[in-house]
């Protein structure tokens, strides 16, 4: 089975990310990493492709910085990587993003499973995932914590899915788009040979016209990025002769703050 997954480069999770004086999001000299949630979708794509003697592909939409995430994916063991980029693409507009993503899956032609990580930390959303499923006209299975079975003969999939109130077991007909949770697997580290091979890989870039579509009019516009307001707080370290005295003072404070 051909499994497609999407990824992107995001700032290292430990990086200090801020808006600089020219209004751009900046993370200084910090490296980019694969969007942290995508570690799990990349691993799952490799495993599911292998289990079904198929192929795993990865796609990123965006400028050249996303080649880093694609090369990391190849180094982990994904078979093929494609980047989509063109003038005028606004990657913060989920409708445009999903239109491009669905067109790329259609162009590849033979995929029956698309796997996403739960969300993308840069745009802070998962809406593009569900919109890709709708633009493809495929069934969406979100928050998957376990793939219980894929049956290539009956073209069905059975998964365990998390809800706020508990767990569900769901069956659906292929093709499907799924989003996976942390904990579905243990993502592998790229091997030394993998890293060497990936560093030499040439990653094809598909343009909007390569996909044979026209972009929808932008449906949301980025106005500005801002640093969150500084937490204007003075920390009060609570002292006392004994732990009992300290917690008693703390409870006084919390009652004054009306948060109990």
């Amino acid at each position, binding site marked *: 089975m051909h499994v497609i997954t999407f990824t992107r480069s995001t700032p290292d999770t430990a990086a200090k990310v801020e808006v600089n004086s020219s209004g751009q999001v900046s993370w200084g000299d910090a490296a980019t990493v694969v969007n942290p949630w995508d570690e799990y979708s990349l691993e799952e794509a490799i495993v599911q492709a292998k289990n079904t003697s198929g192929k795993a592909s990865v796609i990123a939409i965006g400028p050249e910085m996303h080649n880093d995430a694609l090369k990391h994916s190849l180094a982990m063991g994904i078979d093929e990587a494609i980047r989509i980029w063109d003038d005028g693409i606004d990657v913060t507009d989920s409708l445009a993003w999903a239109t491009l993503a669905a067109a790329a899956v259609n162009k590849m032609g033979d995929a029956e499973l698309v796997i996403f990580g739960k969300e993308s930390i840069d745009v802070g959303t998962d*809406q593009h995932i569900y919109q890709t499923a*709708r*633009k493809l006209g495929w069934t969406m299975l979100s928050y998957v914590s376990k793939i219980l079975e894929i049956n290539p003969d009956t073209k069905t999939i059975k998964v365990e899915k998390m809800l706020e109130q*508990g767990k569900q077991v769901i069956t659906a007909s292929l093709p499907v788009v799924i989003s996976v949770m942390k904990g579905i697997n243990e993502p592998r580290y790229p091997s030394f040979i993998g890293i060497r091979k990936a560093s030499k890989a040439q990653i094809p870039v598909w343009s909007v016209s390569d996909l044979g579509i026209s972009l929808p009019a932008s449906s949301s516009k*980025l106005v500005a990025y801002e640093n969150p307001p500084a937490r204007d707080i003075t920390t009060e370290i609570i002292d006392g002769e004994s*732990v009992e005295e300290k917690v*008693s003072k703390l409870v006084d404070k919390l009652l004054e703050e009306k948060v109990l």
Partner: protein
Amino acid sequence: MSAVFVWVETLEGKAISSSWEALGAARDLANSLSVPVVAVVFGQNASAIGAEAGQYGADKSLVCEDTSLEPFRMEPYAALLSKLVKEQKPEIVLAVATSRGRELMAASAADTDSGMASEVTEMSLDGSTLQVTKPTYAGKILGKFALEGPGTRFVTIRGRAFKALDADSSKSAAVETVSPALGADEILVKVESFEAEVGKVNLNDAAIIVSGGRGMANNPTNPPADAEDASVWKAKDGFENVLAPLADVLGAAIGASRAAVDAGYIDYEHQVGQTGKNVNPDLYVAAGISGAIQHQAGMRGSKIIVAINKDGEAPIFKLARYGIVGDLYNVVPALTAELKKRLGK
């Protein structure tokens, strides 16, 4: 008819109460647009819930109780919502950013080629343009977006970011029944089973969260001889027998740092931070959490933060309003006892 639609989420025939926050937010927008608030309710008991929505700000409700809409599945829900949106052309469609709300709003926005913003924490109308603020870069940056009218815009709001109106039992919404958009045989997804977790306080809805970190492993209680890993046993015992009683007396949800989750001390669903949940309770108690930047991103929106840590230099103290420097295994049981006394529990 122009309107502000609100999807009222239900589970097993009852409204999910955070939906009333979406109705509260919708009331403000509808007032400035001079249009009605319309609650959209699908599934078991939808008519009664649609009438109940009137107490929380809905003028009218569109309901469908067809059996194909119970339990929730995105496909039939999105098909029907998209059909209603195409027919009635609401200005704005709102829902709370729960797992179902996120996917339903996004799907219907795609079906109708509408703009969308998710996990919004602030919004206002500027003429017909909807201005929204939402956390990006795992909460390290705020993004301001404009969704221009005319045309429908979809928004999910972060839980606890907007206030529900107080229930007004003198009010009720006019209920109109609509037909499903998909036939039962057109739905390709089947829910085989559902295992509910009873009595769990949801991190996203919690007014108070009590979280534990790596420091949970410093439990002085000795593990039994057959424990596989002493520190995992100690930390788990600490979550269950030291932190949980504090959460109980406060009616709080239990959170955890990534370090605690990755070390196997507690399940992933409790993780707060960059690859966990973003939360904004009134009170956040961090016990034995040093306060890595990834954790801070997920909880810095909390109103009051209390840090309990042995290390007075831990970064969490810079974010905290109140701190106690000390071993959580001394401080937390004392705090629990004091709260029991003071809150009369």
